[in-house]
C-alpha cells in the first residue's frame, strides 16, 4: 500500500510538471508533423512501392513509423530529467524517504510513459485530421487499430523510458546524457524500418534491422493501421514485451546501484 502511494506520488509529479511545461508538448508535436508533411510529402512524391505492395502512399506508410519515432525520442529523452533531479537535491529527497528504489523506478517509468502516450494520442487526433483532408488516404484509424497501436506503444515506451532512466542514472551532466542518448536514438530509429519497407533489404543491412527491437514495434503498428507487416502481430508483441521486460529489470538494477 505504502509503495503504491509513493509510485502514485512520483507519477503525479511527472504529470503535473508535464502539463505545466506547454513548450515540451508543443515541440514534441511539431517535429512529427514536419516529418509527416515534409519528408512524407517530399520523399513520397518520388517513392513508389510498385512491385512490393500496391497503392500505398508514402505518408500512410510512414505514419506508424513516425508514431514510434515520437515515442522513441520523447521516452529516451525523459531520462534527462533524472539528471536534473540529481543536480538539484530533489533526488535525495526521494531517496531519503522510506520508498524503495524499485518503486522509485516504476513511478518514473509510469510518469514518462504517460507523458509520451499523451503526445501519441495528440498525434493520432492529428492523423484523423490529415485523413479527413485527403492526406494519408490508406491509413485505417478505428477503435481496433488504435487500441492495438496504443498497447504496442505503451509496452515499447516502458522499455524506452527504462533505457533513458538507465542512462540518466549513470550520468552526471545533461550534456553527457544528450550525447550518449543521441548515439542510441538515431540508429534505433533509422534501422527500424520506420521510413522504408523491410521486405527487400540488401543482405548487409537486414541483420541490423532484425536485431533492432524497434523494428517489431513499427511492424506491429503498421500491420494494425495499414495492413502491411513482415511478422505476425503475436510475434511482434512477444519481441517488444521481452524487450520491455529486460529493460525494466536492468533499470531496477541500475537504480539500486545509483549513487548520489
Amino acid at each position, binding site marked *: 500500500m505504502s509503495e503504491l502511494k*509513493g509510485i502514485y506520488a512520483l507519477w503525479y*509529479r511527472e504529470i*503535473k*510538471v508535464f502539463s505545466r*511545461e506547454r513548450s515540451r508538448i508543443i515541440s514534441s508535436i511539431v517535429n512529427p508533423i514536419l516529418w509527416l508533411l515534409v519528408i512524407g510529402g517530399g520523399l513520397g512524391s518520388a517513392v513508389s512501392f510498385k512491385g512490393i505492395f500496391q497503392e500505398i502512399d508514402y505518408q500512410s506508410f510512414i505514419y506508424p513509423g513516425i508514431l514510434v519515432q515520437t515515442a522513441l525520442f520523447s521516452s529516451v529523452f525523459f531520462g534527462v530529467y533524472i539528471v536534473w533531479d540529481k543536480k538539484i537535491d*530533489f533526488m*535525495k529527497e526521494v531517496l531519503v*524517504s*522510506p520508498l524503495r528504489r524499485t518503486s522509485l523506478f516504476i513511478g518514473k517509468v509510469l510518469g514518462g510513459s504517460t507523458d509520451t502516450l499523451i503526445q501519441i494520442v495528440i498525434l493520432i487526433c492529428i492523423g484523423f485530421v490529415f485523413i479527413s483532408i485527403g492526406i494519408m488516404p490508406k491509413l485505417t484509424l478505428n477503435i481496433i487499430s488504435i487500441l492495438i497501436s496504443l498497447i504496442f506503444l505503451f509496452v515499447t515506451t516502458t522499455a524506452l523510458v527504462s533505457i533513458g532512466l538507465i542512462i540518466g542514472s549513470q550520468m552526471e551532466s545533461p550534456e553527457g546524457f544528450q550525447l550518449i542518448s543521441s548515439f542510441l536514438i538515431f540508429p534505433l530509429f533509422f534501422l527500424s524500418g520506420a521510413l522504408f519497407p523491410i521486405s527487400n533489404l540488401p543482405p548487409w543491412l537486414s541483420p541490423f534491422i532484425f536485431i533492432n527491437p524497434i523494428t517489431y514495434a513499427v511492424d506491429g503498428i503498421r500491420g494494425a493501421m495499414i495492413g502491411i507487416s513482415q511478422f505476425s502481430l503475436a510475434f511482434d508483441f512477444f519481441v517488444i514485451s521481452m524487450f520491455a521486460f529486460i529493460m525494466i529489470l536492468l533499470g531496477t538494477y541500475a537504480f539500486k546501484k545509483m549513487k548520489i
Partner: protein
Amino acid sequence: MISTNNLTKKFENLIAVNNLNLNINEGEIFGLLGPNGAGKTTTILMLTTLKLPTSGTATINGYDIVKDSDKVRKSIGIVFQDPSSDEILTGYENLKLHGWLYDMPDKLREDRIKEVLELVDLTARKDDLVKKYSGGMRRRLELARGLMHHPKVLFLDEPTLGLDPQSRDYIWSYIEKLAKEEKITIVLTTHYMDEADKLCDRLAIIDYGKIIVLGTPEELKKELGGDIIKLKANNLNIESLKRLNYIKNIAVSDGEVCLTVEDANKHVQDILSIVGKVKSTEIRSPTLDDVFIHYTGRGMRESSPEGGWAEKAMHARIKK
C-alpha cells in the same frame, strides 16, 4: 538518540570521516562545525542512509543505519544544503508529495500541511509555484517539509547558507520555535559561528573528519581561558609577552597581535607598558569565531602535511 561508533568514510585517496564517535541526546540542538570539506556533509549523508560508511556504524532512534536503513529513514527528516523542492510544483503540492512518499493517512497529511505551513508563515503563498519563491521562502518550505512526517531527528545541512541576514533571522527563530514546540532532536551543520552560538545546545568542531573539540558554546569559549586583546602596532615586543604567565595564547598576523588573556581588564595596563607603542587596542570576550580559529587555525591548514585537502576533495569529486 544518535550514537556513532567509529563511523568512517574513505574516498579513493582521502578519509572524509575518520572514526567518528558521537552521542547526541534526545531533544537537543547539536551543531557540527568545521571548515569546508571537513566531513560535515559526508557525516550527514551517512547518518541519513544516503551513503554507506566504509567502516563503523551508527544508530538513530535505536536503529542501525546500515542494517535497518528503512526504519532509520522513517525516523528522520532532512533539509538539504541545495534546493530539493520541485519548482514547477506549488508549495502545497510539494508537501502533498512528501506526505504520499511517507505514506501518511490522508486526513493527517492535510492537517499536518496546514500546521507546518503556518509554522513557517507560508500559508498565504501555498498555491504559488515554488519558482516564484525567494531563497528564504524556499528554505522555509523545505524546513516545513522536513518536519511534516513527525521525524524524531531533523537534519539541517547549512540551513542558512546563501540567505540574506533577514531570512537567516527568520530561519533561526523557526528552528528555535520548533525545537521548543515539536520537541525533536536537531542536528545542524554550519560554518557560521554566530548561528551555532545562537542555536546549539552543544556543538562539535570537526576537521579532517575528526572531532577536535566538543561542548556547549559557553564551555568552549571558557576553555580558551580568558578574554581577547587585539593590538595593532608596527614593532611589538612579543618576546617579552611570552614570559607573562597570564597570557594563554599569542597569535600574530601582519601588524596585528591577538592575545588570549586571563582577566584582561586587570592586566591590560601591564601589557601595554611592556609591548611599547601601539596604534589601537581592543578588548572583548571570546566568541565562537575565536574558538574556531583557535582549534582549526588558519595557519594549521597551510603547514599541514595534508595541505590542500579541500582541493583534493574537489578533485576526487570531479574524477568520480
